[in-house]
């Protein structure tokens, strides 16, 4: 069932991961017309990323935690009237009120337009747009990277990247893969790499795990998280993987590709402890320091944000997952990284709230209360987790002056430091203007955190880098030029 012609959908959901599917099916079940827009060919997002059907995976669940939850969502989606628009890379979200003559206030519920380019990597240059009365942003997160000498060498890959390539393509970056960085994702990555046949000489975690113990009540009310950690921990033990906490990979060795890494002990502030470096032979390194909410479509509209204890920015949401902009809801990692189970609950809450607003659907109060209770409990755990793995202020001590910080524009730490000490830059944006760090293809997604840390004055709090990117993905000029014409196809 699709909205026909120019008639807008009741709800457009951006992102077909756990939060997005849960929101889409909840809204559909309450009678809304829903479009589910996603860049990938398949649903599942990054967490439930899985092999293409042609790869014939008989046991996809072997690569996943809690696969049955995804199967349930998939069944509800298949039984729904939700229109799944795959291969749509959204570059902007706009509200149609600019063109109307309606009096102030009356435009609050004017329809939205989602602008996208299509194709597996958005290069097909067939622009598409989707109109809807309400939007649910469920765009997830991408991995946070902190640079160190050698991190641009082939064989160094994102920890989440290694897992994504394994889940979708059934490939490994090497035979022997060190996993490093910070955050619970590392344990999941290490256990899937080991299960898939890689040797994992070590998991190197920059934090300790003791900080979790400071919040016993939050731990006690989230037993499923402890169970998850035990599952991964047991898998690592079974594969003989060593976990080294309060340590970091501070150098990668090799000429054309990774041959070994140096693992160094860290002090409480993540400063390397001199003389503690030990070399570990490996042919790949999977590294990541947590996840960054992907919120640029919302911040471009002026949505309020909040700082998360791990130093990232997330959307500031109300009790029913609505952003500070009326008619725009968000769920899952966009409100702070908290995992798949939380994303499902938040997606459903947002879907129900949108149905109540747009269609006046009657939403069972008991169900909403239960969802909110579960959301609050899991959110509390997410905040504890974020605090436990926040980068310590001493991590720039890993960098030498010739370490590339910005991978796209090849800007070194020395040049960023010079922009701060000699040219007076005090924030990531000014460093970008002086050095081009963050001005390349990825628009600062890989270097934003590092540049913001290097730009902060000694002792000053690090402001999370602004996630403002006027265009969320690269767009050919021809698409922008064609906006005023009727050349765009209505994907409805």
């Amino acid at each position, binding site marked *: 069932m699709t909205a026909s012609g120019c008639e807008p959908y009741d709800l457009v959901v951006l992102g077909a991961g756990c939060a997005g599917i849960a929101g889409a099916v909840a809204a559909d079940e309450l009678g809304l017309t829903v479009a589910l827009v996603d860049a990938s060919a398949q649903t599942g997002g990054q967490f439930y990323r899985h092999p293409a*059907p*042609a*790869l014939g995976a008989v046991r996809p669940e072997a690569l996943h935690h809690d696969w049955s939850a995804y199967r349930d969502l998939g069944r509800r989606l298949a039984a729904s009237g939700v229109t799944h628009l795959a291969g749509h890379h959204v570059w902007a979200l706009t509200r149609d009120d600019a063109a109307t003559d309606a009096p102030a206030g009356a435009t609050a519920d004017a329809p939205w337009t989602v602008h996208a380019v299509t194709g597996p990597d958005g290069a097909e240059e067939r622009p598409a747009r989707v109109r809807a009365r309400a939007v649910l942003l469920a765009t997830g997160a991408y991995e946070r990277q902190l640079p160190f000498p050698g991190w641009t060498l082939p064989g160094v890959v994102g920890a989440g*990247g290694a897992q994504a390539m394994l889940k979708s*393509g059934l490939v490994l970056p090497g035979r022997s893969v060190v996993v490093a960085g910070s955050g619970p994702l590392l344990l999941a990555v290490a256990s899937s790499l080991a299960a898939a046949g890689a040797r994992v000489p070590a998991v190197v975690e920059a934090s300790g795990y003791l900080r979790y113990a400071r919040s016993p009540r939050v731990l006690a009310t989230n037993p499923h998280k402890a169970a998850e950690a035990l599952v991964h921990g047991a898998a690592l033990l079974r594969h003989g993987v060593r976990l080294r906490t309060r340590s970091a990979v501070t150098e990668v060795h090799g000429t054309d590709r990774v041959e070994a890494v140096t693992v160094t002990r860290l002090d409480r502030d993540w400063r390397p402890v001199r003389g503690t470096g030990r070399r570990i032979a490996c042919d790949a390194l999977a590294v990541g320091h947590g996840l960054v909410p992907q919120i640029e479509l919302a911040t471009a509209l002026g949505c309020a944000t909040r700082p998360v204890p791990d130093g990232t920015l997330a959307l500031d949401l109300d009790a029913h997952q609505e952003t500070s902009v009326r008619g725009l809801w968000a769920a899952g990692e966009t409100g702070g990284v908290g995992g798949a189970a939380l994303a499902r609950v938040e997606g459903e809450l947002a879907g129900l709230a949108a149905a109540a607003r747009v269609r006046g659907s009657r939403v069972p109060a008991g169900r909403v209360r239960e969802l909110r209770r579960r959301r609050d409990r899991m959110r509390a755990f997410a905040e504890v987790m974020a605090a436990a793995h926040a980068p310590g202020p001493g991590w720039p001590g890993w960098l030498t002056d010739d370490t590339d910080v910005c991978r796209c524009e*090849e800007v070194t730490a020395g040049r960023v430091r010079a922009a701060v000490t000699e040219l007076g830059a005090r924030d990531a944006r000014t460093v970008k203007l002086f050095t081009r760090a963050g001005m390349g293809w*990825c628009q600062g997604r*890989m270097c934003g955190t590092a540049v913001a840390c290097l730009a902060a004055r000694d002792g000053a709090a690090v402001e999370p880098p602004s996630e403002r990117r006027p265009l969320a993905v690269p767009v050919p000029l021809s698409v922008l030029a064609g906006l005023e014409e009727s050349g765009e196809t209505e994907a409805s």
Partner: protein
Amino acid sequence: MARTPADLVGAQSDPPFEITFDGRRITALPGQSVAAALWGAGILAWRTTRDGGRPRGAFCGIGQCYDCLATVNGEPNRRACLVPARPGDAITTQEGHGHDRLGV
């Protein structure tokens, strides 16, 4: 214990096919991205950077970092981690920004 990712999930894929990387034949499985096919052949780099001419390949694996840009069938700047491999694809190392010959 599984020795390969394919063993782990019991993959029974459609028949493999060939693509080329800088003229060298490699085998890809249907459903794999270009980057996955290259990793499967042990190839981790297929781009050189504009300033340093340094080798790069897939890094983030989800289309965010653009480190995996490749020239696919003559078309530069394709994200190899997202583009599916097709039989007969010719992948070539992308040098710099991919438009060197145009002088732009």
